[in-house]
């Protein structure tokens, strides 16, 4: 029996330490209701982080994730309210748009051979502009109830209602389980790691690396679309200003979760832990009455600490 390297255990320990700290600072932190709230707050970032993890595993980065998610939310809500499309069709259109953005990112990275950083910096701004133009910077309201169904909660345990759990949280956990299975147990998933590890060697053994990369961006776009739906369900509106904190929070979550920005290393469940760390910090600081701008400050410090840990631990491992 061998202990997992600190790299895999570290994020989990950090989460426990953060929880212990906030529990000591606020009586309300460890209540079922609050923990359920954290999970609900985390579900959007958590699902974006799945897509982001895939991209980062291939040694890329997707800066457009939050803005694409916001665009998807506006598209699905506007299509349902203005165009009167049935809710499910409108949702499919929204997810379709985010998937197309993923396809565009992927094609620019694989065919035009542009660095993902620049490509997604461009699509970040494009998605943001389209979101604002299409929505006139107005929040979309009066959504059909089906669209916000994932925000509904059901009770588990307890006799007076117990703890409310949102359906979206369950969906997020299911998506993590799916991603974990594919990345760990299938050849397609292992190829994602291989491309991030040594793209040239992977190509030379006969794996179509460009197709793997393209698929990663497309699937990431698809996950952002599901995150759009979760965001709409959680807030009950189509918000043109959604995605602004999620954009960096998702990247922070992935890095905190131990996935290396240099590609090829990381565990998808780490990103869930990373998203929870971000959520716990935001929630805990709010309970302590710390202003939201300090939360941004803390997130910034967290991400640098996480990258530094990654860098230093890998140096140490090489000796």
């Amino acid at each position, binding site marked *: 029996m061998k202990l997992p390297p600190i790299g895999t255990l570290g994020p989990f320990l950090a989460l426990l330490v953060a929880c212990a700290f906030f529990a000591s600072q606020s009586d309300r932190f460890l209540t079922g209701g609050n923990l359920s709230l954290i999970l609900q707050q985390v579900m959007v970032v958590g699902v974006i982080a799945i897509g982001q993890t895939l991209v980062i595993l291939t040694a890329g980065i997707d800066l457009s994730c939050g803005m694409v998610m916001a665009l998807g939310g506006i598209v699905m809500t506007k299509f349902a309210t203005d165009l009167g499309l049935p809710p499910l069709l409108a949702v499919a259109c929204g997810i379709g748009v985010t998937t197309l953005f993923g396809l565009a990112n992927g094609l620019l990275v694989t065919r035009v051979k542009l660095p993902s950083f620049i490509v997604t910096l461009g699509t970040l701004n494009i998605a943001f502009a389209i979101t604002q133009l299409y929505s006139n910077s107005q929040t979309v309201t009066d959504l059909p109830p089906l669209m916000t169904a994932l925000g509904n909660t059901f009770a588990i345990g307890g006799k007076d209602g117990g703890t409310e759990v949102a359906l979206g949280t369950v969906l997020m956990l299911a998506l993590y389980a799916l991603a974990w299975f594919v990345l760990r147990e*299938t050849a397609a998933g292992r190829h994602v790691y291989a491309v991030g590890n*040594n793209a040239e060697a992977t190509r030379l053994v006969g794996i179509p690396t460009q197709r793997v990369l393209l698929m990663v961006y497309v699937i990431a776009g698809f996950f952002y679309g599901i995150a759009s739906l979760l965001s709409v369900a959680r807030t009950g509106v189509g918000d043109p200003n959604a995605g602004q904190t999620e954009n960096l929070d998702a990247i922070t979550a992935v890095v905190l979760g131990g996935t290396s920005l240099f590609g*090829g290393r990381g565990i998808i469940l780490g990103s869930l832990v990373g998203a929870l760390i971000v959520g716990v910090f935001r929630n805990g600081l709010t309970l302590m009455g710390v202003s939201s701008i300090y939360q941004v400050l803390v997130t910034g410090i967290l991400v640098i600490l996480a990258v530094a840990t990654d860098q230093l631990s890998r140096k140490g491992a090489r000796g």
Partner: protein
Amino acid sequence: MSTPLVMQAKGLVKRYGQVTAIAGADFELRAGEILAVIGDNGAGKSSLIKCLSGATVPDEGEILLDGQPVHFKTPIDARRAGIETVYQDLAVAPAMSISENLFLGRELRRPGFLGSVLRMLDKKRMLDQSIARMQDLKVGIRSMTQAVETLSGGQRQCVAVARAAAFARHVVIMDEPTAALGVKEGNMVLELIRRVRDQGLPVVLISHNMPHVFEVADRIHVARLGKRAAVLNPKKISMSDTVAVMTGAMPAESIPAECLA
């Protein structure tokens, strides 16, 4: 001729713009041998190997594999035809396990529903086969589940050679496999190359390292000025004469007949 030819090239020409890298080169690889390919820089050695491994397409000439003409457009074509190439720069995925590296791109799936519908990998079977394979080749690596990056350079190269040997049906081409290694590690890889040959796979070994070439090669193909200058028998000719043939100091006509192979 007693041993059949596994791979043969006739009159290969490759031009890059104004430069003619190979000008009508011939090549013959016999069954069960280690053929070293040597040559000075610019002698057309790497262009020849690139044609054989599918990395470039020759402008003229033909390549025969087991007597059948083949036309490789990419290294993947060559691989499908049973030719595996080991590259100098350690072509492995460092963070992945040895077993995963050995089966990269050729993963085995579980039988039945788990494999065909859920597409689950059969990690156990890949691991068992990796262990068996490495034992066959007498590569002393303790655990197949450890990441390749925990290995020394020589051990990593052994993983790359073992992968090539496991999947090659006809030929293994090795491009400077010992160049980046120290003495002991280099010997380890040479030993492995011999074992690959002894298991019946012919090996093409490109190397600058004369002692290594003389230690393992059965025949030496000397490339010079875009052609094959001679094929030498390392048991008969000296190292310094070989270098003389390679540099042109000794013309091919003046090589004693018993030194040719």
